[in-house]
């Protein structure tokens, strides 16, 4: 059979499906389990791609005569496996909370990982086939592939605003079938009725596949599942967006009574509340408000109420307002004006529209202004000055205490964040941050260390005079003032804490015997820690402390990482003796995933070696190194730059969508360029690497200043600026892969699947490795490493032919 030209449309469509599926899975897993499984999905995806390369290496001779049919079959298998693999993964009784108690959980995790790999295997197979079969047109094939991927990653985010995630799965299945149908036309496959069958199937799936089959079943240990076990609870509203699935629950028989860490001396009971869950975690609560302040008295019994006892009718900024608890607290304390910032418009709408009666029109009360924005972005662009900035307690106690956040980035609690907050305070203004109490202390001391760093960077001569920390039995509140605390304020702090049996953890001039009076710890850990962090021995204390409590920064924004290997080894030996909960297991899980990815990758690259007939087509060391290097470096660049733009674009989701899409689309443009230049490959690669190296270094130097200067611009303008900044970098990054492929097409076509496999495996490892390196070294170093690795690739290409 002669095939006139590559199936450009089908490949773009399939590529879009695969990328969209990858993004979608991170959402589905957030709802089913917890959100930190994202890197596992990226790794599974890359593993699928890598494995498909190996399969091609082994089977290409058998496949060659049936290219078209195999291609269409792979597309169909992708369509089938996207929903089926997820349904099966849901059936695996994997419970991350039991990971360290139950050895079988690791096998279950592996099962989920391998299941999730399957659709990507099929996707990779179909795309790899085209690369191999149409090697000389690699530039244009790659352009279509990447253009599709860009459109898929961006498109799925748009679609997630319109339909619930499980329905997106239906759409993707239909699209993959559509791609199969188009492929039959593009490849002029016989019999012709096959095309009709695929079109029909696509239509049938889109119209008739019951979404209920694909419903996400959250873990029974998630907060929402737990709540719905209680008689009399029912879901009264559901909203979805790529930011999260919101579920509002009413409990008619046993009310929600959310008052986190309320003083043991309190006698108040919260008014009726509705539970608001995001991706099944929570609850945050929507509290009934009828304009009367008396029922809100319980809000004065929380550690977070402290700043209101130091400030007279303040202008308050609440960051992370959610369903409004902190706004109510400000109202109760007669704040003069309240600005509330909440990321998710759906939550604001619930308070403002759907439950406006119940919420007493909270967000339209006189003096209350609500802003749908990301907290850092809002503060950066705001010209206002506030007497009090409250950073709300956003996460749930269970999740925080189970070490589930270990790997997630948070730009809310970095040194630079605190500096920005402090710069927006009026003279004498206060920044208040409340966290859950963890024992031995982790969050609180890390936050304290971060605040000390922020004050030092601001040139404050005596940070000790501007810090106060109190703790209840379940929460800790840190105050940072932009002037020294006065004796009157300190008297008020003591009075507030004494009346509520909260402990003083630190205030300027505090004596050791004032610590640890009401909520007794074996040692006054908080006071000792705070004092040590303010002393010249700070670094020694940070080094000796068994949890990682060095300040988080914008370059290393992993506030919830407390993991240190030494302590982990000790805790692991104590795991049965009660040490388990202190073991932040998300970090070892990342390392385990990296090892698993590495092992799987090595197997995928080495497995074909065992098959003798493949020895003939073995790539040279240079070829292997080249595709390994560009795979790693591309992943490093992409992941690090996504992070770098999160702050500027004021929203992780916009950053992922914009940066990923820009990278893919402009890398596609680079491929297209490479296709036009096919005569003189290595010189162009060297030039591209030089330019991208120079750009990366330049960006590292100028981006922070540039972002600060431009952050006030409207979102759309910022997105355009981001794309303009990424474009030249991405164009350069798009050149090496197809150039290498075309070289092989000319000299050693049989090694193309090898190159494909090696590149895929490098990406499997690269995705996880970038995350791991960033945790330790920061995203800037990851970018520098990427530049170095690109340099290495350049050198490898010289000895290619």
């Amino acid at each position: 059979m002669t095939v006139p030209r590559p199936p450009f449309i089908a490949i773009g469509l399939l590529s879009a499906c695969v990328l969209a599926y990858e993004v979608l899975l991170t959402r589905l897993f957030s709802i089913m389990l917890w959100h930190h499984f994202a890197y596992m999905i990226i790794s599974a995806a890359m593993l699928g791609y890598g494995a498909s390369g190996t399969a091609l290496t082994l089977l290409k001779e058998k496949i060659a005569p049936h290219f078209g049919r195999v291609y269409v079959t792979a597309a169909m298998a992708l369509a089938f496996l996207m929903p089926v693999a997820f349904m099966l993964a849901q059936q695996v009784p994997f419970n991350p909370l039991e990971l360290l108690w139950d050895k079988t959980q690791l096998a279950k995790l592996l099962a989920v990982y391998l299941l999730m790999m399957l659709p990507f295997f099929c996707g990779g197979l179909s795309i790899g086939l085209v690369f191999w079969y149409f090697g000389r047109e690699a530039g244009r094939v790659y352009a279509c592939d990447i253009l599709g991927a860009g459109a898929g990653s961006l498109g799925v985010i748009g679609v997630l605003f319109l339909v619930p995630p499980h329905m997106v799965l239906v759409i993707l299945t239909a699209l993959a079938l559509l791609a199969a149908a188009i492929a039959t036309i593009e490849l002029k496959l016989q019999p012709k009725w096959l095309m009709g069958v695929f079109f029909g199937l696509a239509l049938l799936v889109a119209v008739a596949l019951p979404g209920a089959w694909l419903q996400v079943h959250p873990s029974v240990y998630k907060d929402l599942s737990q709540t719905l076990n209680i008689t009399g609870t029912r879901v009264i509203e559901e909203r979805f967006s790529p930011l999260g699935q919101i579920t509002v629950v009413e409990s008619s028989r046993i009310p929600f009574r959310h008052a986190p860490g309320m003083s043991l001396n309190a006698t108040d009971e919260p008014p009726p509340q509705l539970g608001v869950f995001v991706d099944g975690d929570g609850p945050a609560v929507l509290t009934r408000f009828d304009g009367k302040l008396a029922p809100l008295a319980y809000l004065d019994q929380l550690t977070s109420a402290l700043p209101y006892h130091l400030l007279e009718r303040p202008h308050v900024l609440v960051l992370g307002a959610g369903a409004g608890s902190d706004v109510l607290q400000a109202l109760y304390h007669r704040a003069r004006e309240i600005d509330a910032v909440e990321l998710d418009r759906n939550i604001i709408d619930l308070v403002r529209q759907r439950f406006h009666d119940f919420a007493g029109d909270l967000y339209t009360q006189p003096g209350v202004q609500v802003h749908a924005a990301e907290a850092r972005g809002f503060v950066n662009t705001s010209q206002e000055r506030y007497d009090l900035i409250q950073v709300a307690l956003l996460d749930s106690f269970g999740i925080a205490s189970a070490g589930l956040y270990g790997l997630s980035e948070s730009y809310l609690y970095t040194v630079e964040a605190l500096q920005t907050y402090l710069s927006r305070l009026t003279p004498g203004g206060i920044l208040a941050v409340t966290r859950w109490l963890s024992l031995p202390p982790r969050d609180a001391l890390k936050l304290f260390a971060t605040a000390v760093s922020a004050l030092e960077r601001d040139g404050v001569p005596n940070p000790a005079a501007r810090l106060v920390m109190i703790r209840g039995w379940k929460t800790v509140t840190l105050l940072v003032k932009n002037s020294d605390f006065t004796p009157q304020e300190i008297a008020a702090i003591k009075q507030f804490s004494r009346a509520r049996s909260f402990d003083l953890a630190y205030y300027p001039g505090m004596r050791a015997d004032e610590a640890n009076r009401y909520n007794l710890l074996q040692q006054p850990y908080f006071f000792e820690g705070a004092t040590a962090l303010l002393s010249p021995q700070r670094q020694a204390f940070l080094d000796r402390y068994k949890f990682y409590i060095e300040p988080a920064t914008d370059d290393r924004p992993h506030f919830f990482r407390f993991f240190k290997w030494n302590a982990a080894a000790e805790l692991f030996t104590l795991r049965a003796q009660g040490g388990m909960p202190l073991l932040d297991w998300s970090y070892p899980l990342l390392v385990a995933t990296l090892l698993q990815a590495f092992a799987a990758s090595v197997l995928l690259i080495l497995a074909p070696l065992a098959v003798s007939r493949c020895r003939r087509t073995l790539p040279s060391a240079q070829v292997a190194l080249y595709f390994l290097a560009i795979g790693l470096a591309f992943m490093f660049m992409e992941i690090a730059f996504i992070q770098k733009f999160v702050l500027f674009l004021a929203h992780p989701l916009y950053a992922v969508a914009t940066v990923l899409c820009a990278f893919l689309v402009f890398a596609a443009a680079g491929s297209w360029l490479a296709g036009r230049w096919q005569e003189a490959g290595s010189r162009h690669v060297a030039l591209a690497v030089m330019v991208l190296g120079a750009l990366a270094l330049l960006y590292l130097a100028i981006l922070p200043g540039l972002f600060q200067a431009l952050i006030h611009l409207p979102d759309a303008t910022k997105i355009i600026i981001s794309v303009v900044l990424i474009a030249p970098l991405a164009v350069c990054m798009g050149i090496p892969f197809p150039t290498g492929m075309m070289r092989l097409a000319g000299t050693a076509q049989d090694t193309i699947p090898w190159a494909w496999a090696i590149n895929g495996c490098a990406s499997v490892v690269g995705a996880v490795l970038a995350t791991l390196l960033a945790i330790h070294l920061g995203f800037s170093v990851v970018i520098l490493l990427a530049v170095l690795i690109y340099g290495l690739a350049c050198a490898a290409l010289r000895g290619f032919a």
Partner: protein
Amino acid sequence: MLRQNMVEEVLADVAAAAPCSGSATLRPDVIVAMKKVERHRFLPAWMAVLAYLNRPLPIGHGQTISQPLIVALMTDLLQLKEGDKVLEIGTGSGYQAAVLAEIVKSVYSIEIIEPLGKEAAERLKSLGYGNVEVRLGDGYYGWPETAPFDAIIVTAAASHVPPPLLKQLKPGGRMVIPLGAHFMTQYLMLVEKQTDGSVTSRQIVPVSFVPLTGGH
């Protein structure tokens, strides 16, 4: 034998954790109770083989049976006497209630998840724990008809300690609350009500782990 081993393991853990928890061993009545209560009877049949491992286990409905070490520590912290009246919020499988019932005169237990509460009530009855009464519903207001209590144990997650429960605690009484996620008790909170009615709390990390290298 299995139970004996489990208790010995628990005792070794308690001794090891003494520098942090403050007590080197368990009270004799707690040891006796732990040796006597058949943990395997409180688990689904297929899980019974795991019953005497010192680990928390799932019991269905998204709930867990606590790690024996935690059960022992919590019971110990209550410093129970034979004639005491104890309130438990969160019956779960009923295992904790049975351990309490071995020591004190009467146990009142409230479970929020109906099927779980019914199963536990039947189980406790069939095992002959006539001194345990199980009620279904809201634990927030305690059990006013039989209040006050010498001790209260709150095993259900709560964002705060319900003020009515503190009211139902006798002066000189003790309340214990485990904090953390399922399968992961991070620390235990002991609330003591003084004879003058004021309350203090202690936070106890149930493991011998000091956060600084080089000991305390």
